[in-house]
């Protein structure tokens, strides 16, 4: 049986859930000269940092960070220490693109190396893109007739555009009345619950796994949702919320709203560029905002 290493933390989330931008901002924080840092770099030994430096450079220039230049299955990791007590932390990022987690849901297996990570982690950073239309399934019963027709038209138009963009592939069938279920139609909240159930099933550990749920792009959400990030989760992804609060013997969770970019690059780029880089990220915990992107990681180690 694998023993728990209290310093390993896993990054997880679906495609485009905000992991990469968070990692870029975190890598900048760790390498910055900020004096009050809570996390500091321990070692660059045995690491390939080209990718981390590339996304850091993009982030510093307020450009959208790249996700796709890693080899499939390549794991990015960071070896860092807590500044206050010297606790060593290994941050494991097994899949930048998020396709890995989709694949686990689809093929119902993962490799033994990933299983070793799963069995040895102490904490999990679970990323959610609040603007992802796939977060929740739209049931026809929840729409009135006009809404159904309008939404069906919008979906058909989006499908047509997508097919136009992917003419070479042309694998996707147009939606027919007798379309069959496939994993692509399953909502993110169902898939994220499944990821947690897989973890619970494979970890034969009595201690609960701490989970920082990170609602990315919080600056966009804040305009319509001024409450706590936890309330967003309860309202918008209720299945995941219920699962977490019902399984506190397996998962201890806290929800954070995180803006790793610090704002909108199109509208606020000059303003963001004029700030010190560590002033850009914003993290909302409860009703409080702080400029410290490490807070979700620090909470996992407490």
């Amino acid at each position, binding site marked *: 049986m694998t023993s728990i290493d209290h310093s390993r933390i896993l990054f997880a989330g679906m495609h485009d859930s905000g992991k990469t931008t968070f990692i870029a901002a975190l890598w900048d924080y760790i390498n910055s000269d900020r004096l009050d840092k809570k996390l500091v770099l321990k070692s660059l030994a045995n690491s390939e940092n080209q990718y981390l430096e590339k996304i850091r450079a993009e982030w510093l220039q307020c450009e959208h960070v790249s996700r796709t230049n890693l080899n499939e299955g390549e794991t990015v990791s960071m070896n860092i220490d807590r500044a206050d007590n010297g606790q060593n932390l290994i941050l494991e990022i097994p899949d930048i693109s998020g396709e890995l987690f989709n694949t686990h849901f689809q093929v119902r297996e993962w490799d033994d190396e990933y299983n070793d990570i799963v069995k040895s982690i102490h904490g999990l950073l679970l990323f959610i893109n609040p603007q992802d239309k796939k977060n929740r*399934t739209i049931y026809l019963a929840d729409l009135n007739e006009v809404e159904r027709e309008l939404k069906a038209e919008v979906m058909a138009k989006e499908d047509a555009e997508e097919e136009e963009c992917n003419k070479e592939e042309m694998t996707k069938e147009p939606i027919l009345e007798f379309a069959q279920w496939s994993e692509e139609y399953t909502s993110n909240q169902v898939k994220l619950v499944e990821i947690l159930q897989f973890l619970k099933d494979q970890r034969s550990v009595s201690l609960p796994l701490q989970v920082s749920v990170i609602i990315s792009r919080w600056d966009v959400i804040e305009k319509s949702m001024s409450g706590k990030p936890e309330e967003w989760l309860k309202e918008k992804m*209720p299945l995941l919320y219920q699962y977490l609060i*019902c399984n506190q013997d397996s998962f201890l969770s806290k929800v954070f709203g995180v803006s790793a970019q610090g704002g909108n690059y199109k509208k606020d780029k000059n303003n963001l560029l004029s700030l010190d880089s560590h002033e850009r990220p914003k993290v909302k915990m409860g009703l409080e905002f702080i400029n410290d992107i490490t807070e979700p990681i620090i909470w996992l180690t407490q």
Partner: protein
Amino acid sequence: MEQTIKKKICDQPGCKILEGGSCLEGIDVVTAECPHFIHRELSNSTTEAPNSTSITKPFVLKKKTAVQLFTGRELSFNQISLIADCYDNRLIAIIGESGSGKTTLLAEFFTSFQRGAFCTYLFAGSYTQIGFEERAFHATLASGNLKPKTERTKSKEFSFLHLSIKRDDQLSAPASHLLFSDISGETIRDAKTSTILMRSLKTLKSADFILFLIDGEKLANLSTRSLAIEDAKMFIQKAIDENIFDNKTILKVAISKWDFLSDDSSFDWQTKIEHPFRQRFEKALGLLEFTRIAARSENPKIPAAYGICDLLNGWLSYDFSEELLLKEEVQKSSRVFHNYTIPA
């Protein structure tokens, strides 16, 4: 000329497998896969023995071993031990003829929690999320349908869906685990006239609760009403006569699609169904109850999931302790609630 050959080596320190000894972990490497027993390419020149130090490409062709995860799909009867061995649980058999709403009801148990807390319950997990997703798909916008539909159950064998829930005021208490059975309506239809088919439904004897659905849409139509009622009576009678239902059976008869009937003053469900069914079957069964449900509703007066809270409350609050005490007094009981043995 140098050639490369693949040779198996063991990279685990202390393992004697290549020296004629046994695997350190006791793995039979001929028939099973050992993560330490790997291929390595070695050069094989004419002047050099392959077991020398001339490893030309020291990369390891170590195959990653796949770790299987649970499938998420419906479970067979033999697979429900996955839940039954680990958790206290309740097995609920949902039966009825084709179109009576079995699959819609099953899907609704899951989709309700995707919208938020349901009744006083919260979603605590499911080993069969994909099984639920498949059943709910034709009620989603993504299916391309403009009205919710349900694909009929085709399986002639019982399959099972798992749902774990907690009361919202008892989060620290253990979750309740429900196992719902699903089987094709054609099987139920044919079993009422076939001893062989009815006896093949002996899984029903292992169920804690049986929910028999009568299609409310057929009851709402005068041309199909009488036949729907008589078909239900015939199934229950046949199940009693073939000893599939007995004096331990807890049967609830539900009129489904109540949204079709609620405005119909010509239909008195108690006169047409409850009273005659009680008179005929109550003495032969452990418990006989009646209810009305509408998993989905097209009638604005009847809310969606009508009657489903009461079903959940009934199944979860039923106290078996009295019945179990009685069972202990019986030397040879053919029914085991939580191990689900099928009687011979």
